[in-house]
């Protein structure tokens, strides 16, 4: 699958910038951002051409796992690959994300190479 446009969802402006710059270096310069799950759903409604979602887990308003469940419950967005990005390397969390429909799971810290590999494997 050829990924062009990526939606990044994170409540930390620093993390959004880190992810945008890392994705650009990994060969994915076209990305849009949202600051929590609800904002992510709005951005998806406005941008029908999103090929991939990268989302943080802990966020206000709507958490990453709630956002994931909403994305997978909507016929228009359920086929967009979803990668969870989090600092919690806990087996139960990974299981929950995968069972809820996440395609993959990135544990921080990540590198340009590790992000590139994950996206290319979609």
């Amino acid at each position, binding site marked *: 699958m050829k990924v062009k446009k990526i939606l990044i969802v994170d409540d*930390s402006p*620093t993390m959004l910038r*880190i992810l945008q710059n890392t994705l650009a270096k990994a060969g994915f310069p076209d990305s849009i951002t949202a600051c929590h799950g609800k904002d992510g759903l709005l951005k998806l409604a406005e941008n029908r051409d999103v090929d991939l979602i990268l989302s943080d887990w802990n966020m206000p308003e709507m958490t990453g796992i709630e956002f994931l469940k909403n994305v997978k419950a909507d016929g228009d967005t359920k086929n967009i690959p979803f990668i969870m990005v989090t600092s919690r*390397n806990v087996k139960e969390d990974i299981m929950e994300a995968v069972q809820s429909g996440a395609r993959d799971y990135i544990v*921080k810290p990540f590198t340009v190479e590790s992000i590139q590999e994950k996206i290319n494997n979609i």
Partner: protein
Amino acid sequence: MNTIVISKGPFSAELTEVLHKNGCDPIKTVKNPALAAAKFMGKQNIVVYEWSEDPQEETRNLQELMKQTTGLKVLLIVDEGIKEAIKVLVKYDEVKFVFKPLTRERLQIGMRMLLAEKKRPPTINIEYVNPFIESTKAIMQQMAQTDIEKKEVRIDKGLTVYGDISGVMALSGNANGFVVISMGIDTAIEIVKRMTMGDVSESDNELIEGGIMELINVISGQAQALFNQNQHHFDFTTPTMVRGKGHTINHGLHENSIVVKFETPDHKELFLQVCLKTA
């Protein structure tokens, strides 16, 4: 507190009153040390022990007594210059002594020493600190491409942050407490610049604070994985931010903290502080 007075002679009403005032009740008197253990009750026993002129025999008697029950507190009434008493004191923390002749004042001082709350020495399990040290070094390398070197490890009373900016994470599980990463503003700007791969100025408050919070967040996450490998389990809260030097974090744990000072290759300082109360 159940109290046994071992004395060959009479124990005056005046001295008994001092004991009562220090919470000693009931008070029983025996002449033979070998009979004292029979009077012990529960775990709170006090022995006021007037030594005879044969310190070697009395040392043996005392050692026998100490074997009989846990938590025993002993006040020895000894002759000045009896070195045997000192040897016993070194061995048993719960043994104090006063010199003969036993007066009201001396007994009061002895009881005060005996009943004083023992100050706890700093006890931080290094097993709980090492994963944070390892994780800090690794994350600084991976997220900020900076090899930091551990320069100093010390114990601080309480938890006072060192740098201009500090990321704080609370944790619970096998131990409760806080882990803090703290640094000067120049160091923070340099680290966040490297993390975000872009320009950062001192006015980019949100970006700098977010970067330091992200740093402590990821350090804690990696430490959590290391703890899990060793069958220790911790949960972390979301990180918070403290701005300004010398802030004391009132954590209510009454514990000391371990401070680890790191240095970047250009000699900038970075502090990791771990303050934990083990369950």
